[in-house]
């Protein structure tokens, strides 16, 4: 097993640079997820690690060895593709054994490794079927099996579940979590689905436009997003952002005025912005509470979405700013009603005009 280190890795296609100097350390045995919007470079970064793309600059090491100049097969990696990339004319067994056969591994060893992987993935009965006779989930298992038999130091997953339907995706997510516990290998997992990233990863790397916005544990990203992009990207439904004005510092926190003249004190790390500085207040829909009485932040409900277990209220504050409030599933609310909202400083985030957390 081995860790993966990226030092100032860059990638350009023609004149367009898509990865702008990424530094990243993936520890031995760690499960790291790359997330980000489409086109953020997460798949490119994975393909650079795999050796399917050549970096335009920087150093890439796997297990302490610089691998920039090594072909994919010599990097000790195995990759699972979004489209599974199974050889359509070969049986599941041959798909898994193909790479080993050509590497002149002994027949007995191959059979043993394939059987072991098949047992782990519960596809022992499917080994003599061709890919077209397998369901999407079964194909994905075979693709994962093909990666396992290579006994790689690092597993690379490129959106492995995005071609599966929702139910199967949840099931395969659990299987991958189990695989992670069984194999104890280093795994790098690209996904656009933050639930997958949050549930599977030891650490999440949020990418945007070819840069790392933040790398941290799932809860770190959720509770202490470093900037507005990460705050908006992690969490579902997405965080609310409100325009507020700073009133200056008081006891290690910044006081801001909410629309309707409600003050809110929020703890910050950095220097306090001068009074009058426009700031962005971030608060997650699940952290907006309802107040029983007294002075409060009033909002008018524009629309109600009932999901059964929870209710999403799209509301407008008195100055017209929009806000999503997440309430219990059976809370009796209707469009047109006025809510008295309660925000708490501990669960609110402040961002400067540059998008960075204060």
């Amino acid at each position, binding site marked *: 097993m081995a860790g993966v280190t990226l030092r100032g890795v860059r990638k350009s296609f023609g004149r367009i640079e898509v990865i702008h100097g990424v530094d990243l350390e993936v520890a031995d045995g760690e499960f790291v997820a790359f997330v980000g919007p489409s086109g953020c470079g997460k798949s490119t970064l994975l393909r650079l690690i795999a050796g*399917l793309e050549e970096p335009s600059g920087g150093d890439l090491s796997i297990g302490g060895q610089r691998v920039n100049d090594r072909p994919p097969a010599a990097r000790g990696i195995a990759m699972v*593709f979004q*489209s599974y990339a199974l*050889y359509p*004319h070969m049986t599941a067994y041959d798909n898994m054994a*193909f790479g080993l056969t*050509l590497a002149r591994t002994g027949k007995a060893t191959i059979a043993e490794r394939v059987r072991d992987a098949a047992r782990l993935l519960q596809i022992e009965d499917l080994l003599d079927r061709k890919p077209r006779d397998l369901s999407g989930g079964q194909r994905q298992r075979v693709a994962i099996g093909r990666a396992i038999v*290579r006994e790689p130091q690092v597993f690379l997953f490129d959106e492995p579940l995005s071609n599966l339907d929702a139910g199967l995706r949840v099931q395969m997510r659990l299987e991958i979590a189990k695989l992670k516990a069984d194999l104890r290998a280093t795994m790098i997992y690209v996904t656009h689905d933050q639930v997958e990233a949050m549930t599977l990863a030891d650490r999440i790397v949020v990418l945007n436009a070819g840069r790392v916005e933040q790398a941290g544990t799932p809860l770190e990203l959720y509770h202490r997003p470093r900037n507005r992009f990460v705050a908006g990207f992690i969490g579902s439904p997405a965080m609310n952002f409100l325009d507020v004005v700073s009133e200056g510092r008081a006891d290690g926190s910044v006081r801001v005025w909410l629309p309707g003249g409600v003050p809110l004190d929020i703890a910050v790390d950095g220097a306090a912005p001068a009074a009058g500085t426009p700031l962005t207040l971030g608060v997650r829909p699940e952290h907006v509470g309802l107040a029983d009485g007294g002075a409060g932040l009033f909002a008018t409900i524009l629309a109600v979405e009932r999901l059964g277990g929870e209710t999403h209220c799209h509301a407008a504050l008195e100055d017209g700013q929009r806000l999503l409030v997440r309430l219990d599933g059976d809370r009796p609310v209707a469009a047109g009603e006025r809510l008295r909202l309660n925000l708490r400083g501990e669960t609110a985030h402040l961002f400067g005009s540059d998008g960075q957390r204060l």
Partner: protein
Amino acid sequence: MSGLPHSSLERQRRRAAWLFLLPMLIVLAGVAGWPLVRTVFFSFTDATLATLDSFQGVGVDNYLWLVRDPVWWRAVWNTLVFTVVSVGIETALGLGIALILNAHLPGRGLLRAAVLIPWAIPTVVSAQMWGWMFHDLYGVVNAILMGLGLIAEPRAWTADPDLALPVVIAVDVWKSTPFMALLILAALQMLPRDLYEAARVDGVHPVKVFVRITLPLIRPALMVAVLFRTLDALRVFDLMYVLTGNSRSTMSMSVYARQYLIDFQDVGYGSAAATLLVLVLAVATVLAVTLGRVRVDAGR
């Protein structure tokens, strides 16, 4: 779709299907079915081009003559040699060119269009062009080879019995390789890129990738292309006729049939030859489709 139609909707759809097929069936019956039936019919008569209205049935006499004519068997042999050699070379070359065109080369679009030119030229025109190039006195081929010192004196390319068939095959290869290359290229471009990346991660040698992955996957399309070219080659006429006339050293079955039909005006005998040619084609097709498991609806 088996058994009786179950509902009026189904019956209606079947009627519509037949209605759409009808124009094509009528045209096919007129331009292919009728002439074929007439040819088979004439092959059992002593009709001549001058006496198409008055003829007598002669049973299988024409066929008996045919199978005893060494010239006919020479034509069959020529056709088979021509077919096997030219289609073989075209397949190998076409595959190579398709692989090159499939690589991400600059100017690939232009190259692809350029490759098609020989196929786009009518055979009669290109055959005549090559005929002049191979001319024994004024041909550019002799001039070049003599200039290079490869031959001492001009060769009669199309008249020499040993050279004529190779020349005809060479011209066919020049003309038909683009067709092969394009069909194979289309098949290659259908192959998902992921497969090749998976093979790279598996560390599969490029030659192995070609033999174990590319070739099996393009096999259905390749077999269809080979079948098309084989049928085309078995009934070859214009190349030989333009390049070498009725010369026996290159005479194909079609040239033989035409010679009897038109030059000797023996419609009955010529029809018998044409009918046998159709039979050979039919047998070749059935063999290819069953033995080669060609799926004419290639793809999935």
